[in-house]
């Protein structure tokens, strides 16, 4: 009785869970899940629509399913969500355009860092080879010591 009353009270204040669509055939459903893992849930914090238990995420995954069933390519599906939420909708930045910098910049920084480190190792050897400048006073001292 208490459980029934609690469920009635709680049902008033929370969004009711909603069933997602039936899965497609195995090959296309695998694609739905793979694409879903790369799309951000609009009502969650940093979770993909394939991993989120939120009803809205299920609705977004249903949209992916609908687009896959309609024969859309992965890029066309990503574009649908980017048109609404911008690049924010993607869990991974695209490997093209300005977003390519996000992938290239760390490698570039690594190369620059390696160059700087290697260069700093070379310097002591180079300086060691440099002969000391002529100093008349020191020459005189050496001569006096040899006497």
């Amino acid at each position, binding site marked *: 009785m208490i459980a029934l009353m609690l469920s009635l009270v709680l*049902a008033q204040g929370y969004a009711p869970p909603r069933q997602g669509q039936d899965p497609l055939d195995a090959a296309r459903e695998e694609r739905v899940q793979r694409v879903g893992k790369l799309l951000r849930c609009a009502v969650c914090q940093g979770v993909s629509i394939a991993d989120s238990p939120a009803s809205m995420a299920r609705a977004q995954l249903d949209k992916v399913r609908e687009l896959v069933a309609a024969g859309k390519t992965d890029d066309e599906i990503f574009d649908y969500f980017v048109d609404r939420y911008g690049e924010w909708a993607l869990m991974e930045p695209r490997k093209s355009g300005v977003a390519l910098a996000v992938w290239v910049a760390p490698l570039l920084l690594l190369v620059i860092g390696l160059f700087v480190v290697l260069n700093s190792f070379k310097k002591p050897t180079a300086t060691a080879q440099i002969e000391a400048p002529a100093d008349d006073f020191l020459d005189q001292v050496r001569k006096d010591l040899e006497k």
Partner: protein
Amino acid sequence: MKRGIAVTVSLVLVAGLIFILGNAFGKDPHEVPFKLAGKPAPNFHIKRLDNDQVVSLSDYAGKPVVLNFWATWCGPCKYEHPVLDAVSKEYGDRVVFLGIVFEDTESNTKSFLRENGWNFPQLFDPKSTVAVDYGVSGVPETYFISRSGIIVKKYPAPFTDPEKFSTELEEILR
């Protein structure tokens, strides 16, 4: 020469970092971007809660439309409800107001509306397809659609002041 190259590379890196940080500072990291402003509003075909009649956005072609996504489980939506009712009474002859129920049950919604009244059609979006098409990121959210069917803007928070709502409305009435 080498020193010049090192200074130039450092300056480019620092400038890049300043650009990235400057771009992100002052922005709410939890804010969900909205990119449909200035684009045609997606059409929909969903039923009214009061008479089960199917309603499409295209039924209101040539008229400014206000779409309000809401739910009975959402506290701020409840505060907003009287504001929406008041504004729809004032502007109802010039602007089409449509409520779209988000992630809720018909019975919960009907019960809430019976108690609190409703002044404009409430539509039921059982599979949240309309919400996904409109890029909803929570409720309440209000979309302002121009006479030519273009989404002028989205207001992603509850309206608590009718004056503020009126100001936003004037933009689609121009």
